[in-house]
């Protein structure tokens, strides 16, 4: 097991270096040099330009600059936003919980609906329910979620007036960010209205962000379940006279869920891509919206730091999933 963990760990180091390279060269590839970008439209005179270039170490060879960059990154210094003058790390930390809260709700929603739907579809193969689940999940998989969000707003917020259009909580409430997770913070604020408002604001974004993972999880659960149900040990279990319920939930499901766990892990990239769009539609103050705004403000340090942090997080989660996978499935562990 230790060897398995160490091999996996050693594999992510080159990937991490690669991500730092992408982040480092991002700023250098942007037309114009960083000083001009920072000076913005006011421009800057030549002497000051040279001075700044020296101050920032931009007159050194690229490899040296990269070395300094890595050193700063390893010390947790990701630079400052050009627009707000706040450090990138601080901004990220204050916005990250909003994205995590949304993503967690979305993946829980996707699991709660997707796994049962996949199981029933597999058990009742070729029934109307099966065809329905497969049809809906292919539609969900093909869904432009930025449009899906607008349609849900149109239906539930505009026509029915059930849910709010945007934001995380009604402006009437002020909740001190303790954990940053509004559901938790508002729960402990002992103001029932605040908690309900936070829940109400979460419903539509959760559905929108959960749609694609839901579709993938339902499809994956169905096919994994079908494969397992065809195996000999299931026939044996049935022949022993075990109840259908026992065979499906105790014998089949455990093995069927192994590939599903991997798929859940792979959803983190999908979730992040979705979060960019979902947050834009619902004005959700998270990482996705922050990065999009950074592009339009030409706030390159934010983009650079955000890219690095998001890359590192996605990579760590993938590693974690890999390890869990090796843990729950001994066949993987021993093959390597």
């Amino acid at each position: 097991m230790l060897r398995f963990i160490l091999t996996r760990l050693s594999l992510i180091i080159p990937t991490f270096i690669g991500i730092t390279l992408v982040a480092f060269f991002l700023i250098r590839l942007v037309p114009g040099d960083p000083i001009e970008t920072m000076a913005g439209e006011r421009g800057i005179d030549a002497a000051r330009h040279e001075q700044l270039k020296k101050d920032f170490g931009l007159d050194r060879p690229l490899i040296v600059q990269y070395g300094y960059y890595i050193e700063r990154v390893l010390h947790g210094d990701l630079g400052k936003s050009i627009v707000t003058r706040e450090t990138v790390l601080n901004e990220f930390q204050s916005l990250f919980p909003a994205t995590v809260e949304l993503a967690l709700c979305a993946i829980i929603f996707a699991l709660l609906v997707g796994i049962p739907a996949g199981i029933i579809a597999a058990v009742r193969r070729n029934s109307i329910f099966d065809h329905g689940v497969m049809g809906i999940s292919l539609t969900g998989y093909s869904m432009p979620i930025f449009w899906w969000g607008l349609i849900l707003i149109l239906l539930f917020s505009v026509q029915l007036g059930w849910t709010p259009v945007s934001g995380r909580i009604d402006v009437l409430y002020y909740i001190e960010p303790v954990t940053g997770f509004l559901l938790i913070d508002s729960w402990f604020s002992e103001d029932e209205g605040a908690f309900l408002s936070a829940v109400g604001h979460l419903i539509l974004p959760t559905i929108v962000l959960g749609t694609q993972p839901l579709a993938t999880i339902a499809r994956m659960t169905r096919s994994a379940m079908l494969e397992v149900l065809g195996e000999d040990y299931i026939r044996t279990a049935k022949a022993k006279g075990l109840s259908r319920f026992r065979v499906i939930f105790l014998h089949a499901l455990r093995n069927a869920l192994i590939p599903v766990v991997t798929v859940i892990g792979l959803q983190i990239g999908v979730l992040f891509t979705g979060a960019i769009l979902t947050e834009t539609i619902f004005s959700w103050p998270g990482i996705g919206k922050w990065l999009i705004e950074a592009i339009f403000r030409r706030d390159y340090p934010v983009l650079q730091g955000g890219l690095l942090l998001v890359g590192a997080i996605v990579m760590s989660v993938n590693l974690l999933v890999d390890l869990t996978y090796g843990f729950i499935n001994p066949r993987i562990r021993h093959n390597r």
Partner: protein
Amino acid sequence: MTAQTVQTPGVAAPSAPPHPLREFWGYFSANRGAVAGLFVILGVILVALFADLIAPHSPYLTDTTVALKPPFWQEGGSLSYPLGTDAIGRDILSRLIYGSRLSLLIGVIVVSISIVLGTVLGLVAGFARGVTEIAIMRVMDIVLTMPSLLLAIVVVAVLGPGLINSMLAVALVILPHYVRLARAAVITETSKDYVTAARVSGAGTIRLMFREVLPNCTAPLIVQASLGISTAILDAAALGFLGLGAQPPSPEWGTMLADAREFVLRAWWVVTFPGLAILITVLAFNLLGDGLRDALDPKLKR
């Protein structure tokens, strides 16, 4: 004996394997979803080809006297603007019709770029092995690690917003799938006897790559291409929606949605139809891709 077999081809034919294309169609047409997808795609292609003839108006013609007209079946709508008009009086149906050209072009061009580049990189990685292979595959891993839209956004941030740049960004994002497929196929194929035979008879690496191995890797690449077109259309539309892809007044469907966002409260039709067009087209390509995979994958046959 030979004369006899020639004289009775009708008798020999049933035992002979069917023509590969016919066999393929047999499997493919059994999948009703895939056939439906194929017909929708053919429909979209026809609409795109004959946009000039079908579209009732120019997609760019603005007429503020008819701004935000609802579709014809609603009160205040008229048949001259069947799906209504947008905020500056452009006909939505005409814009959707011209938009189909852009979406198909985006899908085909993006996938062509990544399939050509991806296959070459995959072939090189599979044949060269060693450091070259590790370098190529590591870079692809990095691309795969990053959330696809974020990476595309970063590329657009560097190159600047626009249709062409957004297409390049999406092409880069879907590239790893083709590289991996081609490399995996090369590695399985090169150990087979026919490749050894070709090598022994003096075929060079280039010939081995393109004349011997590549034709045997086409099936998974075709499947991936069909699925890739749907991803490309979806991602390019997402970039358009964020204001980073095709720029207004281009009738690209995602860009149309970006314009429509502020009217979500009072004009449902400007929001509904462009997205529906994206959904139907993407769904059709996914159905086609699934059908192709089922028909081409020998493991699933019989």
